């Protein structure tokens, strides 16, 4: 049967294409968000006002809360980016917490109007007393 051969070769072809797809990094291409290092590297691609998403860890000791905004820094271990958040943050927002920010460059500062907590796959039991109390 010719069809059977086509189906078998086709399945091999699909698997090959999917493998090629993972290797070429579809995920990197569909830029859902950038890490601070990438954001600094690709600064020229995102002129002021061009919105993108930035993911990183809130730097310990950098958080200053204003009346209706707050400033802090995010890092991915490489670059560190200063952030101005013009909106209220989710209840779990704190220093040392991984966050996802939606906004745009404004000079050297990333001005965000939305902050999300980006919990990763790592779970930890709190130290004595609980480091992150829930309101």
């Amino acid at each position, binding site marked *: 049967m010719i069809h059977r051969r086509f189906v078998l070769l086709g399945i091999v072809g699909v698997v090959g294409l999917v493998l090629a797809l993972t290797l070429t990094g579809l*995920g990197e291409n569909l830029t*859902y*968000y950038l890490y601070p290092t990438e954001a600094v590297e690709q600064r020229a691609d995102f002129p002021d006002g061009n919105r993108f998403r930035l993911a990183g860890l809130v730097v310990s000791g950098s958080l200053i809360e204003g009346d209706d905004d707050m400033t802090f820094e995010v890092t991915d271990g490489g670059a560190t980016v200063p952030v101005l958040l013009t909106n209220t943050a*989710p209840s779990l927002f704190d220093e040392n917490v991984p966050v*996802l920010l939606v906004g745009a460059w404004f000079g050297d500062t990333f001005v965000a109007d939305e902050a*999300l907590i980006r919990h990763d*796959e790592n779970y*930890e*039991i709190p130290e004595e007393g609980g480091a992150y109390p829930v309101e």
Partner: protein
Amino acid sequence: MTRVRVLFAMAGAAVAVGLWFAFTAPTDALQGEFSRIINIHVPSLWVAFLAFGVTALGSILWLIRKKPRWDRLASASAEIGVLFTAIGLFTGMVWGQAVWGRAWDWGDARLATTAVMFFVYLGYLALRRATPDQPARAQRSAVLGTIAFVQVPLVYFSVNLFRTLHQTQSIRPDGSTMPPEMLIAMLINVLTFTLLYVALMAARTEIAVVEEAAAPVASMAGEGISPPRLGEVEDV
């Protein structure tokens, strides 16, 4: 029906144990009490994947063997899969609102592909509903049940293929990224939900057997017509 009763009794007991573990296991440092949602969210979607896999298997076996039991297996599993996808999506939205600060995000590949999977299997159930004739229904839905499964691995691997807001798997070939107490609680609930799935499957397939038996008794062709008796009937 006794087999189903036993299975439901076992599943009920298991759910009680699972709940106890879910509420006594330690919580995550960042998420606090919200991290307990994992004990419903992950098992639900695990059952959904399992159920759609069984649907695909039943569909392929039907196409090869043409035995009604494979069609019953495929359809029962798809119904339960849709139910648990809905539970998974709902608990995910609650969790997302609580932790991320946002219930839904179309830019996230895991969320988007899961929603697509949900709609594909809703389409599968709609197709079944729209096809009245039993063998035709089995044949058509078996074809769709086979094609539809193609995107289930896409949902599972979406967190690895794309950068997502959704976290990646906590259980990996090289071990787990969860403390053992939390992991055990979650795994017990995965087991519990699987047992619940088995019980629901047993019940649903038995109902399907009863439904098919209760279908109107097949009438014989030609029986519906009797010789005309125009002379016997007056005033027509």
